[in-house]
């Protein structure tokens, strides 16, 4: 790229250095390469980001997303397979579509053979709903459940201005089995994803608009009082209900309290100066007809949110399986000139577009990982403090829900070691939720069990 698509204003940076933003700004500045001075004693942040790609990936080397083992013990491998190599074990090569990750070899892990059993019954276009939640919507749960990013965010709430950043390309929550967001606060509580770069930028760096901080604070104070009144009113209704109905209404009361908490927290954060960020070089007007620019601006915004410690938890739904109504349908057309809907690639698996489509997505993702890897933080890089989970809830065939293509990157400071392709296909099925338990524990969320987990995947951690 000729021009970096983000830019910190130098004057504001210098001003900002005076305030207590213990952040590695310097790497964000184009001309500087030294590590930022950190406020002594403050522990390094622990971040998590989950990224979803839809419609599965290209895996012509075996059925169900698992490369076939040949009689001689070697594995089938196709040059355009999503997997960097056929055989499990240390990663020794990167093929055509995984090429963008070559430089990141020591920072990535591939995982093969994991999935959510709960997604099997949701149908070909819906297992993405439970990608980060593992909820058993097909059978025992009538709604989705809490996603791992939100579990982490709620456990670590209060550390940053925003408890999490939930973005996507289509925005909103979508519907039951047609999600447009990766994040859920709990059953029936999908968090709408934001999809407009301008809106995300404003939310992060200019939340008060034209208003002065004093005015904002006064407004928040008023809102808090109004919410109190609303809570009073709601309680008066609550009292008149039978026990069962009261339990039902608790959801409402909790929601009001949650909003109150947010108002309080926003108010508290008005005492902390916002990072000063200008939009120069950041094309916030980008639209879906420029998919590469659009996806990268979204990644940039997540990067900037992490960089300025506005949040530590993020999810990004880069595609959904139900995008018939949006321009996403035509992404592969705009990006690669594929004459058809992006979704068709998954069905028809044209030889000259499937791998290229994966390559295109991997390039974007690698762009983000490299951005994190080249920003110094503490003794290492931002990537070392950021665990990035990337994949799809479908393998080769878009309608199957077994053996997700998954990649884990970063998080070295949380104990993760990399450079391996792990395969979990022999013996008893290992639930993807086991990995979630390990990730949650690494993020210091005390967890013994998550969804259908049967244990951990601590072999991904350094001994």
């Amino acid at each position, binding site marked *: 790229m000729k021009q970096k698509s983000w830019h910190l204003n130098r004057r504001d940076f210098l001003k900002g250095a005076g305030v207590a933003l213990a952040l590695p700004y310097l790497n964000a500045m184009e001309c500087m390469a030294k590590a930022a001075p950190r406020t002594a004693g403050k522990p390094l942040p622990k971040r998590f980001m989950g990224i979803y790609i839809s419609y599965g990936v290209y895996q012509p080397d075996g059925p169900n997303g698992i490369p076939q083992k040949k009689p001689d013990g070697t594995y089938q491998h196709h040059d355009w397979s999503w997997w960097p190599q056929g055989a499990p074990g240390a990663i020794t090569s990167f093929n055509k579509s995984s090429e963008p990750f070559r430089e990141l070899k020591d920072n990535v892990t591939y995982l093969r053979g994991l999935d959510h059993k709960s997604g099997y019954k949701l149908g070909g276009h819906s297992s993405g709903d439970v990608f980060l939640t593992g909820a058993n919507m097909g059978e025992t749960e009538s709604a989705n459940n809490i996603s791992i990013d939100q579990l982490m965010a709620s456990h670590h709430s209060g550390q940053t201005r925003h408890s999490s950043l939930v973005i996507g390309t289509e925005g909103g929550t*979508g519907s039951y089995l047609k999600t447009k967001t990766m994040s859920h606060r709990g059953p029936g509580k999908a968090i709408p994803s934001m999809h407009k770069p301008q809106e995300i930028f404003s939310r992060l760096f200019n939340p008060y608009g034209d208003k002065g901080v004093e005015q904002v604070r006064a407004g928040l104070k008023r809102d808090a009082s109004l919410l109190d009144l609303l809570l009073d009113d709601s309680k008066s209704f609550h009292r008149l*209900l039978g*026990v*069962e109905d009261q339990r039902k209404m608790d959801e409402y009361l909790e929601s009001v309290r949650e909003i109150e908490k947010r108002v309080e927290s926003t108010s508290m954060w008005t005492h902390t100066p916002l990072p000063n960020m200008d939009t120069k070089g950041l094309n916030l007007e980008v639209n879906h007809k420029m998919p590469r620019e659009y996806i990268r601006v979204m990644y940039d915004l997540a990067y900037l949110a992490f960089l300025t410690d506005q949040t530590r938890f993020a999810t990004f739904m880069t595609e959904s399986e139900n995008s018939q109504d949006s321009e996403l349908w035509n992404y592969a057309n705009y990006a690669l000139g594929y004459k058809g809907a992006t979704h068709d690639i998954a069905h028809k698996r044209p030889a000259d577009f499937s791998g290229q489509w994966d390559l295109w997505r991997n390039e974007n993702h690698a762009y983000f990982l490299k951005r994190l890897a080249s920003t110094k933080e503490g003794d290492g890089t931002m990537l070392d403090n950021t665990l990035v989970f990337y994949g799809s809830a479908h393998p080769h065939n878009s*309608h199957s829900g077994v053996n997700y293509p998954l990649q884990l990157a970063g998080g070295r400071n949380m104990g993760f070691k990399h450079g391996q392709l792990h395969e979990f296909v022999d013996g008893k099925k290992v639930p993807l939720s086991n990995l979630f338990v390990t990730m949650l524990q690494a993020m210091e969320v005390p967890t013994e069990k998550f969804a259908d987990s049967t244990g951990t995947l601590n072999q991904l951690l350094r001994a």
Partner: protein
Amino acid sequence: MNLRVSHLSVCLAALFCAAQSLGADLAGYQKSVAPFFKTYCVKCHGPEKSKGGIAVHTLGGDLSAGQELEKWESVLEMLGMGEMPPSDERQPTKAEVLAVRDWIEAGLRDYVKKASAVKSEPQTRRLTNVEYENTLSDLLGFEFAVIGDLPEDPEHHYHFNNTAELMRIGPEQLDRYLEIARRAMRSAIVDAEKPQVIKVRERFQPSGSHSGQAKDEFSALISKFNGSQTAKLMVSGPPLTGEFRFRMSASALLVPGFDEIPFETFMGMPIDGDHTEKPHRILGTAYLSNSPDEPKVYEFRGRIENIPYSTATDKKTGATVHRRELQSQIIFDNGEPNSGNGFSHYQRQFSLLRAVVNWIEFEVPVVDVWPPKHHTDILFESPLRNTNEAAYVRAVLERFMSRAYRRPASGAEVERFVKAYALIRPTVPTFEEAMRETLALVLVAPRFLYHTESDREMDEHYAMASRLSYFLWTSMPDRELLDLAARKKLGDPAVIEQQVLRLLADEKSQRFVKNFTLQWMSIKKSLTVPINNDLYPHFLKLRRAGEVAGTEFPYRPSIRKYMMEETIGFVGELIRQNKSALSVVNSDFAYLNERLAAHYGVEGVKGMRMRPVPIKQEHNIGGLLTHGSVLIGNGTGTAPHPIYRAVWLREAILGDSVAPPPSDIPALSDSGESLEKALSIAQLLAKHRTVESCNDCHFRLDPWGLPFEQYNAIGKFQPKVPKDGARIAPFNDTQHGDLKGYQKYLDTIQTIEVNAKSRVPHGPEVNGMHELKAYLLKEHKTHIAENVIRRLLAYGIGRSLTYRDRFAVKEIFSQNEKKHFLMRDVIVSICRSDVFKESAANPKK
């Protein structure tokens, strides 16, 4: 005490010991039930196997304990349907079955009678998105579209989502409600000074012809390159709210065989040459029949807030501009193939059918009366306004809240929002602004967002008013209902009946019919099933070359949309004409327009308006079973899918609930290649049934789906299928370019008689749809009628029915049995039933 159940296993005896005192009917249990179980059931539903989660040996012999009554009810259902025992097992006599059923039935009845044992289920639920939008619109007095701004409601096939279980809330949802409420109040309460009016007008010249067509003429032809011919208008200006008025002076150039031209206007985001649809909204359809010598002015109104727009920045001022594009086009479509290539029959005929438009005009906002009525309805004229602001605010709040809450607001309730007003007023510049914010807060209060019928202080008459209007209007009660509630008249069955009829006669009941039907029938999926264009080259509107072959033409109603309207309209007609509920299986009319009639092969239907049309047996349609929406939605787009169709029949029509297939079985999946290749699905299924675990479910499923095989994947009667392995000749525009030619083409492909024979469980062999329908109407009348009653009742009271409601259902059933379950009468019975009243009234506990 020993209950002497030695004929069952010993461990059971122990279990029974725990049961309570000897019920009066325990003797009956021992006499007829226990031996029955032992002889016919325990092999598969006992200590060794418990298929379907039922193990009869664990069901206690005393129903009065209230244990596992759901299971008892499903045993009852199974026996009632004649599904158990399976036909290859030893069969009980009718008398034996009857004795068991009577015993269970009596036990359940006794238990339910002891009302004290009723477990209360939560009734408090938020409004569904549809209810919320309608309520907001009716409350404010103008249509306010908000569903797109809300997280989508969950959908469960064959179930209604207006239940406490599914209508949940979280902070994000509440946040959205607040945002929408603020937007709503900005629209409802206007500023004192009249806003700037945007008025755009376009004239079309009756000259300047190209290819023999003047600039004011718009033909019915859709061309491959240019799409429809449309009269266009761009509207751009600052963001604003208010009512708009669209006017158009137009007429028709008709050709023989046409009486009118449907000319539809839609508006939304500018199209900018895209081939994909942008968000837009239909303003209305003018049916043009007047000649160009007498142009007429047609007018549509609506709210500008509801029309999608794109934003742009005014280069001079830097201000934000909202841009919307309006287009009017002929939507006539008689089903003739339109390849988009020239010289087809279609092209010759439809280039001559034209709308003539002299001018179109768009004006927003309409300021004929200022401030508008919706404003003065809230901020009404009153001397108090200038003399005593506090008293005025209180009066405004009381009036508004009493409508928003669907019952009189109490003094204490009003006071809280008076306090809110006091907090808000100093922070905003104007009185209007403060009122907007205050009233927005009312709109996120639980008494607005929730159904409040179970609130203990809710008067039963107001509760009834709400229950009736949310049932039949999907919205809040109107003034008449609230007046009746105030006068305590809504306990009177005669008044209820009269109100039900009034509500059903009102146009607002369309919302009920649509909402109810779509969920009951679960047909939305029919819109997204990908149709195989090689087999059905002409099903979709426009067939173009390459990857986009067979796309539905953007901005035009598709046949699949008409099929949805067909199903909704059919149910609507059953209610409107008070027809028998059994018509869901067969009827002497269909609900069609010209496009659908061409698809089904019904002659003599002209024009695009949907309407009831009499049909004959040889049309092979009638009832819901043969609706395109049902058949396509339960097919693969390539082939029919007998299992989907069987599940649909059992769920939607017979009222069973069919368990989804377990995940560990080999799938006969919807996407599996095997299915697309296997044209003889009957054989595939036969193979599937040889596996025992598959057979357990499929022997009860497959037979229901096979007679549907006569209807293909696009929902057309087609009792022949292509020969397996035969090469399919390609579709040829010039040879197959009209309906006749197209049929000829299909006939050359489909050569083998389809196998639609099947032996229904415990029934005779039926061959094809006619025989299936006849059998259903002969042997399953009770189930069909009871199912319609159950669906309406569950929807009406907003919760799933349990065994406790069994007798309420039976009562409604017997009230209507004599007259063959006339739909409107059934609805009246439901609304007058105790269960409806109880649900409407406060539980007092």
